[in-house]
């Protein structure tokens, strides 16, 4: 099963995408994504993959070009970070409305200003409502696996939606990790050739990206929402197929020591592994702590989330972005609204942390738990705090 390799995660993501018989890629350099672009270019230059690599002049054009290529019926890939993702923003809902199964790796990085190149989730959060399937990975193995899985989900005839895979910049993209790289034969077995539902070809002329006014627009929006919701079924199927082939199983919501936990923490992305160590420490002290890791951001896994937290008394939601002047972190408001109608639900706390690459070691996570455990009167419930930030 696969090959055991050790390499930088960004390079490995490019290798994994290279196993997917992509026809076209358009990627614009930006730290910390650039290694993906560079390595893909190497693969093309060395004839290891048979694809067109379009050296676009911006991320806006990168997304535009993959939309054009995907419309032509090509399997198309792009990758970006931060400002690049913000520049693509205008086009993301168009890609999903056109039902184009584009796959994108995002090396998550803080958005300006001030300019910062390090990791947080402020780049992906403003893209939440663009109609893409959106998932987060925790380590290099997941980054590789999801990069391949993304194509199969996106191109499934019942889905036909773009997918983004969020990989924490530097903290994950620049780590050298050991993992299992699937072989070409294995990927060929898993990923069938892309069969587009319509293409830009003179053999059968179609019009893509029409103009729709109030008589049709709302119906198109509803159809997109339903497509995104229905994609969960396919996502689960594809993940279980992957588990059968590769022995690694994935769930929309992962849990760690959560079954009997009285206090839970929720994380997304690479922070999960550090938080897990904090849980072990707390458990050693006799505290019934557990962890919930949200892998699938869109479509939002309501059922799985509710099931994962229903027995806990307290839930600490961590956020690596903020809704300025709003209710706190975007994940926090999402979780609160998901649990609002539940009869049995934990008290919810919110810590905004790890902004612009600020490191959060194990004791910081322990500190969050301790602070929430000490909140006997519940005065911190439903409020948010910038964790560890100087006044």
């Amino acid at each position, binding site marked *: 099963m696969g090959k055991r390799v050790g390499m930088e995660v960004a390079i490995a993501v490019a290798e994994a995408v290279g196993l997917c018989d992509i026809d076209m890629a358009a990627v614009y350099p930006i730290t910390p994504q650039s290694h993906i672009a560079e390595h893909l270019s190497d693969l093309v230059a060395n004839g290891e993959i048979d694809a067109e690599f379009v050296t676009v002049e911006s991320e806006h054009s990168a997304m535009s070009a993959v939309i054009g290529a995907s419309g032509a019926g090509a399997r198309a890939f792009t990758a970006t970070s931060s400002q690049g993702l913000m520049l693509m923003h205008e086009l993301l809902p168009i890609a999903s409305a056109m039902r184009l199964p584009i796959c994108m790796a995002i090396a998550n990085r803080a958005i300006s200003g001030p300019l910062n190149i390090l990791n947080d989730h402020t780049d992906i959060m403003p893209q939440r409502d663009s109609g893409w399937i959106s998932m987060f990975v925790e380590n290099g193995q997941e980054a590789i696996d999801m990069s391949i899985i993304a194509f199969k989900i996106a191109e499934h005839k019942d889905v036909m939606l773009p997918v983004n895979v969020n990989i924490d910049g530097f903290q994950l993209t620049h780590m050298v990790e050991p993992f299992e790289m699937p072989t070409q034969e294995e990927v060929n077995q898993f990923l069938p*050739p892309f069969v587009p539902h319509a293409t830009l070809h003179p053999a059968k002329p*179609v019009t893509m990206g029409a103009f729709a006014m109030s008589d049709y627009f709302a119906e198109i929006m509803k159809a997109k929402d339903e497509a995104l919701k229905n994609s969960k079924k396919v996502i689960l199927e594809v993940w279980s197929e992957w588990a059968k082939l590769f022995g690694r199983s994935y769930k929309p919501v992962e849990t760690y020591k959560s079954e009997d936990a009285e206090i839970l923490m929720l994380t997304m992305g690479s922070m999960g592994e550090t938080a897990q160590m904090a849980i072990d420490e707390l458990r050693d002290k006799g505290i019934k702590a557990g962890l919930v890791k949200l892998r699938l951001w869109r479509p939002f896994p309501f059922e799985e989330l509710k099931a994962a937290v229903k027995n806990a008394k307290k839930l600490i939601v961590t956020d690596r972005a903020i809704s300025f002047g709003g209710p706190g972190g975007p994940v926090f408001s999402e979780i609160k609204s998901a649990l609002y109608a539940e009869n049995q639900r934990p008290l919810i706390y919110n810590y905004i942390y790890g902004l612009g690459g600020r490191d959060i070691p194990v004791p910081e996570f322990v500190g969050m738990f301790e602070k929430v455990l000490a909140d006997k009167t519940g005065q911190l419930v439903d409020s948010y705090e910038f964790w560890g930030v100087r006044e």
Partner: protein
Amino acid sequence: MNIVENFDLFAPKLINKQELLSSGHRACSGCGEVLAVRLMCKALGENTVIAAATGCMEIISSMFPTTAWRVPWIHVAFENTAAVASGVEAGLKALRKKGKIDDRYIKVVGMAGDGGTMDIGFQALSGAMERGHDMIFVCFDNEAYMNTGIQRSSGTPMGASTTTAPAGKVSSGQKTWKKNMAEIMAAHGIPYVATACPSYPLDFIRKIEKAKSIKGPSYIHCFSMCPTGWRSPSNTAISVGRLAVETGVFPLFEVEHGLYRVSPDMPKKLRPVKDYFKSQGRFRHLKEDEIDTIQDRINLEYKKLLEKEKCLKTGNAQKITEVG
């Protein structure tokens, strides 16, 4: 001007009879731009994929669930048409190479208005041309943002009144000279650049056909009269286009591999610009001295073009390389 009457009878092969842009679209009556697009499609033929920018030509042709397009057509946004076309071209190339589609030759064409080309779409266009994609980009220049209500663009000519550069008590409309887009494209060193106008249909068709025959990027700047935005009667599109050419306001020329040729339709002697200005309400406010300034500029620009043609003419290519 009765040349087009019974044209079909005398020269049936000169114009493709297929209508790849069907009637029933929603363009204003007398729209010169949609006429140009229709002619372009005739010249391109059916093995074409078009990427179009947001703008008049997009909204009038693709009202969901109807479409006027009989060629594959994609619209994504306003500023990114050249990038979308790049992607279509790259995608088709890869698919053809891998044997995933039949191996017929398909020309990819990007089209946008002056705003979608010269302003907001400028970067994407420059990038696509520089990368050398096998595509034609056609700018349908109606000299303002017409789709959104006649706002000025960098293609609006000096002195024209628009809704964001209106003529007023202390203003004479547009305060800047029209951006010379064809020259900027020629400066990209691409194989073929041409200016054209649907008032000269055979010249326009020939230029599109030439661009189609070139493997690599080419750019055509098409002067597209807008009776609505230029405040002239809806039956004047063709005559106003001819006036623009005859006065040197919009000279017809082509640049092939850096060598210039002024189109044979250009008159020996230019007519005065005021003949052109009289035809449109957008210039009505201009005073004598303002017209003189514009006339001087037109003379200068046209002279520059003729000089360029003289030293960079196709026949002179030999001499230039010798000197070099």
